[in-house]
């Protein structure tokens, strides 16, 4: 806010003469900032008031300073006339406060919407990342189309191969995100931690505030326990003291030594509080694909060079570990990777606000035109007294520019607030590394827009007025008849244009809202209500193996079951919307894969027996595994529950695959797993994403040789799920006081969060469509009111001559509806073209969805008729005696 206010003030200072700015500019800015700081202490209102007062001070003083400092020369004359024009404009605004306020509000709203969206798009797509020469940074990953995966994650040995052979890179690093327990004696918290190869800071180009980064030696298997902390942690835990370096930090119940502090800008990939070395071992084969990578290209190298380079490096990997060439490297510009998810939404929002602006301009042009018609007489007099056409034009342009500047200032402020509101309403919409905020560029954009708008709406009246015939203005009635037909036509055209744009926007909004509603009605495959979810991660030092870990979770379940109102509790390794853990399986008797054949990844989960009842996941065939069914010893019976998608892919055409067997791909032992039950698909990756094959193994398979320290626990209650958390925390605390309960949320909230982006887009578009509708309908209303006002005399005569009042009012309503119908006739075909661009955002809804189009038409006809009704009634109440008066 402070930066924004300063930028605004700096821009405003430009209104002062250059001499004054050169002499005092810096001190004025400094004083302004002092004032702001002081005002901030008195609250937000005082802060805004101080901003406004300081800018008004410039506005009030600037004309005087210009006069004072430029007493001579030809510019003075022009300046003086500008001041006169401005004064005149102000007086004319005062005379028509209602329509002035309407214009400023209309345009201000449109500018606010545009500013907010522009700032959002600027942050997402254009502002450079906070790293030096960030255009040379690329995102690295691996891709496996045959596994049905766009990104597999990077396998550490692959990464080390790349690092040692690739030549197009100056440097590259791998990183991952995990979460850790931070403890300090009494309390414990869960923090997001980055794990990275030692040189990530060097690749990004960031330097520690204090201390150093990791050394290559520290990034080795069983390396020393060292940690880098972020700015936040440094401030909260160590009060920003330099002595933090060398201090110790308890992470996952182990003691780590802090070697340095990284600045906020290094919080890559975002939200990370501390970093630890990956401690990777490049010699072990078949490691999981789990890391992300970032590389810095050598100057002059392109992404394609880098791609070729990594493919070349990958040849060694293919020869050794991946003879099927399943996994290959992927290189993208860093910015493009992170902005990818926002491109479609960004385009739609950008187009929508542009339409809002066009509608606002048409609206304001209409209002200005109506105003200017009322002022024909005044201007006629001025022309008669010797004002040149150019002078009058300049006067009118000054007026529209003044209005535009006022709306621009208000709109920019409003946009800043709107932006904050959007970000606050949906924290997940915008990734944390994006620096949002109204920059000088955004302000320039807003003011560019309003200047454009002023030119647009300023032209219409000027065009009309400069063609004035002096004599016609002074003779008879002030031009009631003169030129009224072309003016009416222009007004009609403007209102029709508004309706056309509003139709396009409403259709787009209608489609998105319906698509969102459809998505909301998709069956998630589980019962989201009454279920609370949270996670626990056990420190390896105290829970040494899979069996100990499992026993602990079973004891938590026993505690949870004892909470009043809880009827089921269970745990799973990988809950919906939360994670992905893939593996490969093959059905008994399935033919061996031929080279190049699709080999989709199966989502693998270990779930406690009561997990299914807790989540309300429905059984389609067979039965669930019993609590003690199965085991981990060789030869033991191994049951599994699979989802319908897996059943369909592994045993196509088999109605009930219970009893069928499968094992891990490439498993040569004869340890088969038997399908005991088939459950309905859970929309694990989000409601709009198709489900992969998935299966559940019983936790009895987990033995002391395995390691599963983290589970998501789920609890079903007949009470309000959110009210369970205090009791859950107490139960966990009694078992292990050092263990934080984290990611605690209801399943309903998790489901809603998975739809956040769609919801925000639909809401934002709905807001824009509402503005568009209000403006278009307001335009119809204003136009008809104006026409009825102008034609009172004629209407009076009609009524005097015996016209029915109903006839008169229906005449007016018909006139309004005619514009709506023309607008629909033009707007609906245009929407058909436009809505195809929504494509992927519609989640399967047809872009030609009849309901939406019919609904939009109905809404416009009804609101249009309502808007016309008020002026129509006014027309019907015209007294016939008005026909006898002069009627001017």
């Amino acid at each position, binding site marked *: 806010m402070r930066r924004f206010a300063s930028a605004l003030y700096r821009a405003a200072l430009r209104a002062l003469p250059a001499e004054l700015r050169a002499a*005092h500019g810096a001190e004025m800015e400094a004083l302004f900032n002092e004032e702001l700081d002081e005002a901030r202490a008195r609250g937000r209102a005082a802060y805004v008031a101080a901003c406004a007062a300081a800018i008004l001070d410039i506005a009030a003083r600037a004309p005087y300073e210009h006069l004072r400092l430029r007493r001579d020369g030809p510019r003075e004359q022009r300046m003086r006339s500008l001041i006169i024009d401005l004064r005149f404009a102000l007086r004319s605004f005062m005379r028509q406060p209602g329509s002035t306020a309407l214009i400023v509000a209309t345009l201000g709203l449109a500018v606010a919407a545009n500013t907010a969206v522009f700032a959002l798009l600027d942050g997402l797509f254009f502002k450079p990342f906070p790293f030096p020469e960030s255009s040379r940074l690329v995102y690295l990953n691996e891709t496996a189309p045959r596994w049905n995966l766009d990104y597999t994650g990077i396998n550490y040995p692959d990464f080390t191969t790349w690092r040692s052979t690739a030549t197009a890179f100056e440097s590259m690093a791998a990183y991952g995100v995990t979460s850790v327990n931070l403890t300090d004696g009494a309390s414990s918290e869960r923090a997001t931690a980055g794990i990275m190869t030692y040189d990530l800071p060097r690749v990004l180009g960031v330097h520690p505030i204090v201390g150093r980064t990791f050394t290559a030696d520290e990034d080795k298997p069983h390396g020393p326990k060292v940690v880098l902390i972020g700015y936040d942690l440094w401030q909260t835990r160590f009060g920003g003291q330099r002595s933090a370096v060398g201090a110790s930090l308890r992470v996952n119940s182990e003691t780590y030594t802090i070697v340095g502090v990284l600045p906020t800008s290094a919080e890559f990939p975002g939200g990370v509080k501390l970093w630890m070395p990956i401690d990777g071992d490049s010699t072990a084969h078949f490691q999981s694909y789990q890391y992300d990578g970032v590389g810095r290209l050598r100057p002059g190298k392109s992404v394609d060079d880098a791609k070729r380079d990594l493919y070349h490096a990958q040849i060694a990997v293919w020869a050794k570990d991946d003879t099927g060439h399943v996994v290959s490297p992927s290189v993208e510009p860093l910015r493009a990777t992170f902005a990818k998810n926002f491109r479609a939404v960004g385009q739609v929002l950008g187009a929508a606000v542009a339409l809002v602006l066009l509608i606002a301009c048409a609206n304001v042009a209409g209002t200005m035109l109506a105003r200017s018609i009322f002022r024909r007489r005044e201007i006629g007099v001025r022309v008669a007294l010797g004002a040149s056409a150019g002078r009058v034009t300049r006067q009118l342009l000054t007026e529209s520019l003044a209005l535009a500047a006022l709306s621009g200032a208000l709109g920019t402020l409003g946009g800043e607030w709107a932006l904050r509101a959007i970000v606050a309403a949906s924290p997940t919409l915008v990734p944390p590394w994006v620096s949002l905020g109204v920059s000088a560029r955004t302000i320039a954009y807003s003011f560019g827009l309003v200047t454009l708008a002023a030119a647009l709406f300023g032209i219409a009246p000027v065009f009309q007025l400069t063609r004035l015939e002096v004599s016609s203005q002074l003779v008879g009635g002030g031009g009631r008849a003169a030129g009224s037909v072309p003016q009416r036509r222009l007004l009609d055209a403007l209102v029709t244009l508004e309706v056309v744009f509003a139709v396009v926007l409403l259709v787009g909004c209608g489609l998105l809202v319906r698509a969102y509603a459809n998505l909301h009605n998709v069956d998630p495959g589980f019962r989201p209500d009454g279920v609370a979810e949270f996670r626990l991660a056990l420190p390896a030092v105290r829970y040494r193996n899979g069996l100990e870990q499992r026993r602990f979770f079973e004891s938590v379940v026993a505690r949870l079951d004892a909470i009043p109102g809880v009827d089921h509790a269970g745990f799973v390794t990988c809950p919906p919307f939360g994670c992905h853990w893939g593996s490969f399986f093959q059905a008994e008797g399935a033919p061996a894969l031929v080279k190049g054949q699709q080999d989709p990844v199966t989502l693998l989960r270990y779930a406690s027996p009561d997990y299914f009842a807790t989540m309300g996941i429905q059984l389609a065939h067979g039965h669930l595994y019993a609590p003690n069914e199965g085991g981990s010893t060789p030869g033991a019976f191994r049951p599994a529950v699979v989802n319908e998608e897996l059943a369909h892919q592994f045993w196509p055409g088999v109605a009930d695959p219970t009893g069928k067997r499968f094992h891990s791909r490439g498993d040569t032992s004869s340890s088969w797993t038997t399908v005991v039950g088939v459950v309905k698909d859970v929309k694990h990756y989000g409601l709009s994403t198709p489900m992969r094959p998935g299966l559940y193994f019983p936790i009895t398979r987990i033995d002391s040789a395995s390691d599963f320290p983290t589970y998501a626990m789920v609890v079903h209650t007949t009470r309000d799920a959110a009210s369970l958390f205090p009791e859950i925390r107490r139960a966990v605390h009694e078992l292990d006081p050092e263990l934080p309960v984290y990611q605690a949320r209801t399943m309903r909230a998790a489901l809603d969060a998975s739809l956040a982006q769609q919801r925000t887009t639909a809401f934002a578009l709905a807001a824009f469509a509402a503005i568009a509708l209000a403006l278009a309908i307001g335009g119809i209303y204003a136009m008809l009111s104006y026409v009825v006002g102008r034609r009172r005399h004629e209407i009076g005569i009609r009524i005097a001559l015996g016209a029915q009042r109903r006839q008169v009012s229906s005449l007016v309503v018909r006139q309004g509806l005619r514009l709506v119908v023309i607008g629909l006739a033009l707007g609906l075909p245009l929407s058909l073209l436009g809505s195809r661009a929504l494509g992927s955002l519609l989640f399967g809804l047809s872009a030609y969805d009849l309901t939406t189009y019919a609904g939009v038409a109905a809404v416009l006809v009804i609101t249009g008729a309502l808007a016309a009704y008020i002026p129509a009634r006014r027309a019907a109440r015209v007294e016939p005696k008005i026909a006898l008066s002069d009627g001017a």
Partner: protein
Amino acid sequence: MSRPWFFILLSLAAQDRHGSGIMRDVLDLTAGELRLWPATLYGALDELREREWIRALDTAPAFARNESARKRWYRITAQGRRALAAETASLEATLRTAQRRLAHRTESA
């Protein structure tokens, strides 16, 4: 004489100050009633300099520290003092007249 001019001169009559110092002093002098926003303040300072009622100092005074030493400092001139005295005298006369009239009205009421 305009209010900003009067109070700027009055403020400088006590000691040399920089712009932001003047602004704060005027705020105190008027019990918070007159806040000289930057454009008004520096515009007026320029005008007063043009009239040679004040002048800008080449170096900050010895007691100025750090940040304020980098700012431009101002000093009232002899001419400025005369103008301030004249304005004060005129205000005084106005004040006496005002008091007399107010007193007169109270009696007659």
